């Protein structure tokens, strides 16, 4: 089975947002980057699937030249090869445009199964996986927290507002991975050494035809400074009074 994992390099989750001079982009100076948290789950699930059903794992990203760092991390954990679809304007590429590039690559690679994270923790759109599956006209299951796979299909569970849903699907399929699905492994020294010899293909991304136009970017309004109403249980009546009469939420 040929398994593709689509991953994204994102700013670390501890960054403070700063707005660039044009007022429409993030000022990324001083940012550190990492593999998006949910994509780590996708990489792990791909390796687990290879261990269970056999086959190979190809990691694909649309990102800057530096994203080879994140790709090598995936190779060190057990992926077989990687593709960097190079795009210096990766941060501005919208989900539709990213999904199109990935769909073309997945077709070219002849994959049977794609894993990706539920959402990338920078843009929070959670759109690429669902769009990719739709463009490929494959079965697509999102936000998966439990998965059983065979050669021909699978059963997935996911949490929704209604409860825990069980979904059945056939292959080929796109699966987006949520917390609870697995515990990502750490790369060992042996894996890190082996990763250096694994192939990383670099291709240039076609120019993005973005449909999303960011008019402006702003920091959220500062909240009005609150107050400590008191200490310990003795402060509860003052809190109730404030919630009822001042905030009117009780």
């Amino acid at each position, binding site marked *: 089975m040929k398994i593709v994992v689509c991953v994204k390099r994102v700013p670390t989750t501890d960054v403070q947002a700063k707005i660039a001079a044009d007022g429409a982009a993030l000022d990324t100076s001083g940012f550190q980057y990492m593999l998006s948290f949910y994509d780590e789950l996708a990489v792990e699930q791909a390796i687990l699937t290879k261990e269970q059903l056999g086959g190979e794992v190809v990691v694909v990203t649309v990102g800057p030249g530096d994203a080879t760092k994140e790709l090598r991390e995936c190779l060190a954990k057990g992926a077989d090869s990687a593709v960097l679809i190079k795009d210096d304007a990766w941060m501005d590429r919208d989900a539709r445009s990213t999904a199109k590039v990935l769909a073309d690559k997945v077709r070219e690679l002849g994959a049977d199964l794609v894993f990706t994270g539920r959402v990338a923790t920078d843009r929070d759109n959670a759109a690429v996986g669902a769009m990719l599956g739709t463009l490929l006209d494959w079965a697509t299951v999102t936000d998966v927290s439990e998965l059983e796979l065979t050669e021909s299909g699978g059963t997935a569970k996911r949490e929704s507002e209604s409860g825990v*849903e069980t979904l059945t699907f056939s292959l080929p399929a796109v699966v987006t991975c949520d917390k609870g699905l697995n515990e990502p492994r750490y790369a060992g020294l042996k894996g890190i050494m082996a990763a250096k010899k694994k192939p990383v293909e670099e291709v240039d991304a076609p120019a993005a035809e973005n449909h999303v136009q960011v008019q402006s970017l702003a920091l959220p309004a500062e909240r009005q400074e609150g*107050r400590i109403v008191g200490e310990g249980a003795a402060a509860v009546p003052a809190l109730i009074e404030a919630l009822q009469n001042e905030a009117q939420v009780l």
Partner: protein
Amino acid sequence: MAKIVVHVEHSAGRARQASLEALGAAKATGAEVVAVVADPGAAEVASALGAAGADAVVHFQGAEAFSPDAAARQLAQTVQDHGANALLAAASAQGRELIPRAAALLDSASIADCIRFEAAGDGYEAVRPVLAGKALATVRSSSPVFCGTLRPNVFPPCTDAAAGAVETKPSIADPKVVVTEIAAKQAGRLDVKEAPVVVSGGRGMKGPEHFHLLEELAAAFGDAAVGASRAVVDAGWRPHAEQVGQTGKTVAPQLYIAVGISGAIQHLAGMRTSRVIVAINKDADAPIFKLADYGIVGDAFEVVPALTEAVKTARAGK
């Protein structure tokens, strides 16, 4: 006149509140609103949507199990049939899957988790969070159809009834994915994204065995959910679905009560747009107090039970 198609999610014969809010947001732009509901179990829901502001309702009938790919195709088809220029849904698990899928079918962008949505020029403008709310982007779409999901608890539902005539169509057959079972949440349990009141616990709760205190406080409020910080979810004290923050859920309830949560930047990003924030923490210097409207410095095990009793009394007196 502009037309907006709205996907209406439902369970147990009732439309979800967040879907009614999406209808309200669509209606508030002055557009004609076409609501879409899909079987199984949508007949009763369809007939009630006129009262929630739907000018027309399309009921896809006959499916015995819900299918996300069929539902997405039904939405795209309805957009095309009606010549609509926008497609909206609640930013729920279902909405956040169906809208990008339908958008891909319509060769349009998909814009998630909008906290503002309004008509602008020939199209629409929305505000949505990036980096889990550390920044807010004002966006437009040059796509033929503006496809977006709207954050629950932000938009008011529509109070004026509209015609809401129901047209039925057959469900699209032979889906690729079907939902074969839904293990429903315990009665009265709300998701943290939907609940008007969220009571969240962090490390200060000292162990999973103490979260019943937060369950009881939530129960005292009625419509409330229990949330959690990443630390306690990673420690296995609470389920993933309850995690609030950058690698969990972004919430905007009327009232957010943070108990024993010091306030890491990733957590603060996920709850800072709550209308009123209360923090209860032993450490008077905890960052959460900078964001909170009201704080109590003290031991959760002492303050929370007292607060639960006081909330019960206050609500009984109404």
